[in-house]
């Protein structure tokens, strides 16, 4: 088998890896993006609060603070161009007692130092006027108008797609398992025996970043997986709160929040449990109780009865109280992008920029591509006017066939989702890209039809269609 040679191999197509690949795709250097799963954004990126934080939380002077504030600005700048769903709804950290009042003042000061724009301390009356469903115990709030909510998945799918469209090779189901020297290059081997050659390996392997680093003899950090459980409420609860509602941060993170999602549902969570198993994404009854009991302190009427689905995500805690970003001391061909815990989603675009800056600083001569195209447009039938809908249906009748009735998704959009750069390869991939199966019936009606479309588009039998790759088959062989 021919071994392909790259300048840069980015390990992990989560938010950090995807934005790093995106930045590198602006240059003529050859880059590959190695992903151990069947799709992008399958780890920490997939399941989190999907909040674009303003940046008042991290300690001033840290990389976290710098890249959070820069990442926030980049999301606001790029989301339209790259068609990343984002709503700048602002966030409130609410104070419910004396301690909370102290804390929000402290966060205000911190935010000013970090360069966060528009921060404002609100009185009880101002807070309740904007958010009448908050607890009457509320004393006031810190408003951060630059905060918002996004699609966490699109925050890595969009840059991965742009990267692939601009020449980066996205290689799926490539679980890095062995690394060896080959002159000035590294040979990076997958569990199934495939090999790529690269000058620099950028380790953005999320919860598994410590294992990848170890393959290079770097055991300078250990990733502790911390599980957070969330619930999504029906969109008929959509008006419950208008801003992201935080409670003051606690030791294990930013605490339980209640927030609109970018799609107009309400999100409740997360819990925070350090666990042993990095892939143990279970949800528990106990976790959900913790989340709702916590959430009711902010919004008393929030109810488990409105849950349409719940999920859990793993945050990679690096233990250094800051992102781990830079060339490894153990091996100069390894660049760690690790311990990207909260606010890692927000920081993503800035992390990509930072990595390229550091590569250039360390003597890697990068030459800009003349023909880089950073635009991306996702066609969403539901958002068109009737005239536009009719035009599209005339051109492609598949846009006139609704497959997912709950979310009004057409066959044309599902076909697009499979065919586009960094496209869908499985049921969850389609669901995350176009929302088919995301609604009330959770795929009950459209599931069999989506399976058939995937089978047809990828030219594979139905028994090879999976929910999310690997052994997640849907139906038996004939």
């Amino acid at each position: 088998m021919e071994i392909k040679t790259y300048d840069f191999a980015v390990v992990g197509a989560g938010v950090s890896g995807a934005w790093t690949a995106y930045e590198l795709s602006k240059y003529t250097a050859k880059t590959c993006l190695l992903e151990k799963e069947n799709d992008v954004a399958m780890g920490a990126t997939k399941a989190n609060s999907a909040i674009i934080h303003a940046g008042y939380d991290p300690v001033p002077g840290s990389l976290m603070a710098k890249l959070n504030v820069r990442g926030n600005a980049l999301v606001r700048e790029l989301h339209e161009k790259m068609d990343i769903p984002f709503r700048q709804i602002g966030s409130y950290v609410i104070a419910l007692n004396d301690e909370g009042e102290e804390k929000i003042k402290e966060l205000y000061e911190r935010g000013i130092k970090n360069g966060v724009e528009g921060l404002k301390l609100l009185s009880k009356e101002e807070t309740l006027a904007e958010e009448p469903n908050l607890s009457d115990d509320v004393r006031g709030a810190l408003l951060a108008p630059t905060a918002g909510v996004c699609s966490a998945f699109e925050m890595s799918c969009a840059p991965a797609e742009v990267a692939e469209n601009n020449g980066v090779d996205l290689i799926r189901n490539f679980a890095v398992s062995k690394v060896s020297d080959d002159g000035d290059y590294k040979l990076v081997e997958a569990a199934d025996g495939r090999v790529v050659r690269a000058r620099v390996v950028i380790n953005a392997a999320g919860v598994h970043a410590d294992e990848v680093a170890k393959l290079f003899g770097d055991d300078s950090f250990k990733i502790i997986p911390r599980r957070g459980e969330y619930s999504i409420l029906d969109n008929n609860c959509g008006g419950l709160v208008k801003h992201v509602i935080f409670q003051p941060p606690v030791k294990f993170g930013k605490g339980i929040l209640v927030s609109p999602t970018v799609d107009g549902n309400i999100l409740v969570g997360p819990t925070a449990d350090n666990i042993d198993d990095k892939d143990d994404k279970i949800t528990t009854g106990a976790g959900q109780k913790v989340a709702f009991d916590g959430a009711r302190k902010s919004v008393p009427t929030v109810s488990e009865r409105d849950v349409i689905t719940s999920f859990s995500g793993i945050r990679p805690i690096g233990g250094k109280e800051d992102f781990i970003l830079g060339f490894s001391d153990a091996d100069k061909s390894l660049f760690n992008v690790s311990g990207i815990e909260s606010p890692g989603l927000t920081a993503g675009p800035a992390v990509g920029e930072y990595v390229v800056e550091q590569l250039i600083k360390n003597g890697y001569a990068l030459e800009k591509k003349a023909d880089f195209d950073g635009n991306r447009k996702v066609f969403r039938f539901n958002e068109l006017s009737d005239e536009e809908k009719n035009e599209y249906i005339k051109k492609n009748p598949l846009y006139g066939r609704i497959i997912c009735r709950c979310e009004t998704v057409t066959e044309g959009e599902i076909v697009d989702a499979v065919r586009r750069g960094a496209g869908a390869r499985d049921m969850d991939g389609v669901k995350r890209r176009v929302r088919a199966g995301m609604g009330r019936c959770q795929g009950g009606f459209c599931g069999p039809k989506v399976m058939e479309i995937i089978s047809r588009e990828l030219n594979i039998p139905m028994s090879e269609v999976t929910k999310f790759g690997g052994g997640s088959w849907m139906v038996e062989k004939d």
Partner: protein
Amino acid sequence: MTMNVDVAVIGGGPAGLAAALECRKNGIENILIIERDKQLGGILNQCIHPGFGLHVFGEELTGPEYAQRYINMLAETDIKTLTDTMVLSLSPDKVIRAVNSELGIVEISAKAVILSMGCRERTRGMLRISGTRPSGIYTAGTAQRLVNIEGYMPGKNVVILGSGDIGLIMARRMTLEGAKVKGVYEIMPKSGGLRRNIVQCLDDFGIPLHLSKTAVEIHGRERVEGITVASVDENLAPIAGTEEYIECDTVLLSVGLIPENEVSRSAGIEIDPKTRGPVNNGNFSTSVPGVFACGNVLKVYDLVDNVTKDSVLAGKAAADYIKNN
């Protein structure tokens, strides 16, 4: 494109078919049935088991046979149909927006509208079962479609949660197709399914029905590998210490049906929180004058025969409305 009709029927399953035919019988001329699937008949098309029609036709038919009787009757009328067409919304002044591949967006103004969109199944998310998120968890109706319409087996080693009729029917169906159905687990102290289904679909095949037991955790990272069930107390809360692990590769859910009223809501129709269908203001009329509702979109029925009987009354009511307005 725009159309004007006397009666627009949304949904071409048993309810819509019976209501449309009754409108025609009562002298209404211009009737249109809008159906999202490629053929009429609704969910009956995947119900290939017998047991339909005993009350209406005095004989036992399969679902497709029952539907075909109405499709045949329809063929003898000039009732128009738009199949493969999805209704997007209904306005309070009875304008329907729909879409299909051929015509694009269609606006249909109707003097009266009959809602007959049926229902959907409750899902795992609503049950809030703990555990992983593997493949292999299907609602019973989705599994029924896969097996009976598409011709695929969802799995071979099956546990069924909930003892609704579709779950019972699927226990038998999966067994006939060679799967091992390990048991049906029902959280309530008695099954919500029909007695005859418990006898014919479980007892006759030696499939155990476990009452007052529920799923507490789903296992398996990629595909379902097993499920933990436990007995529940009188408040339906799992009793610690009664957990039991059952190995399986497939879990079918038959835990209730919900009338599908998103289109009704778009017209501002008042919904009864108990039935989750439109409030019946007498004679199957809804809170919006000229809009009627029948079948499972109104409330969940046990028997299609009863859907037919009530839908005939709804069709008559819609015809009377047009004559009087």
